[in-house]
């Protein structure tokens, strides 16, 4: 089925990815620290913002996952959570906000409008934010149930835990961003 083959993990065989024992331990430690202390930038534009609020409230507490504090400045955030519909007018703003974030950064697209344009398949709506920025996790739903959001957050945490984290980063973007740039350059 197309779905399974497409979500197979990219095997990184480059020599840069090879790590010694201590580097691997450091990478796991950094991965653990980063995944359980995500600072979210809830880029909320539309109705999904209500569900984000309900996830952050006490009943489905997102603080249990460490992602408690929303940081409304891209300079201080490491997870961009795009919540709601992104118009073509808003798209350059979103891209600018994404570029202002420091590495390491991850993007979660919350709801069908951010993931694929949703049912606004028209001339004014960006059909999925992955046209302009790389996305790590897609959360479906209109709006997503809080349990769905927490599932997506746990998927992101697993992804962060698996990534290569180095103490002295040479400025390489994370694998999702690298793949995104590669695909974007191929589509030109």
């Amino acid at each position, binding site marked *: 089925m197309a*779905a399974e083959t497409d979500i197979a993990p990219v095997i990184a065989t480059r020599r840069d990815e090879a790590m010694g024992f201590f580097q691997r331990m450091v990478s796991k430690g950094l991965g653990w620290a980063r995944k359980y202390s995500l600072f979210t930038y809830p880029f909320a534009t539309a109705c999904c913002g209500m569900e984000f609020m309900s996830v952050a409230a006490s009943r489905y507490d997102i603080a249990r996952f460490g992602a408690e504090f929303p940081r409304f400045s891209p300079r201080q955030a490491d997870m961009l959570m795009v919540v709601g519909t992104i118009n073509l007018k808003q798209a350059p703003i979103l891209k600018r906000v994404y570029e202002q974030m420091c590495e390491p950064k991850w993007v979660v697209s919350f709801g069908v409008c951010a*993931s694929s344009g949703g*049912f606004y398949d028209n001339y004014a709506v960006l059909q999925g934010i992955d046209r302009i920025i790389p996305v790590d996790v897609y959360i479906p739903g*209109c709006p997503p149930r809080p349990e769905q959001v927490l599932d997506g957050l746990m998927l992101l945490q697993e*992804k962060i835990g698996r990534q290569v984290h180095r103490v002295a980063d040479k400025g390489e973007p994370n694998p999702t961003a690298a793949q995104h740039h590669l695909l974007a350059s191929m589509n030109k």
Partner: protein
Amino acid sequence: MGYKATQDPRTDVRERAYLPELLKGLGITARHFFRNLFGTRDTNTQVVDRKGTSLITTVEYPDEKIPYPPGYRGLHRLVPREDGKPRCVACYMCATICPAQCIYIEAGEYEVEAKEGESRVIEKFPTQFVIDELRCIVCGLCVEACPKDAIRMDTYEHTKPEYNRQGFVYDIPKLLKGPAVSHPSDPWNKREGSEQPHHVHKEAHTRIGEGLVQLKTPHAVGKGHEPKQIGPGHAPSERAVK
């Protein structure tokens, strides 16, 4: 003239000593603290039915899950017939009404020789039935539009998030699940012969309201709705007055 310091209504010495009131407030905080720490937590959705002593009602999601409300629209499923094929006859009603246009169907026709069992009175079937769950707005219009009860959103589970968009394209193998469903009004049920007793056709909404369709939620649809067993012999009494 003006403000007099003795306008203060708190003439009680105990209150003006400040510390006893401070300790009283701290006592309220401490009581809530120990109550939440050691009390029992009840995550019932109905606030009036909660019996726990703790005031915290956090549902610790992956470890404990609350049942979704009855009528929750979640992941779609295609309903199978008795022979395992989907009940869908590729009439495109769902695809037409879908506001997000997320359903893609390709219809195929049964060969005359290959028709056996229930397929002998059906002409079309879906060779492809694909739902893009990442476009779906979970409105439930496809379920309402389907004339064959072939698509339902009664799985009571949400669509799982994925790492990339291809994982959300659900085709027939991913959608076809659940027990086989057969209605008295199905064409293969009606054309057996005149000896067959006439089934009482009950509309789907009445069946669900009376508890005849088993919902997957652990709690009942409502109080007093016990599933009744209605056999074909009871048919005349249903239309008693007439």
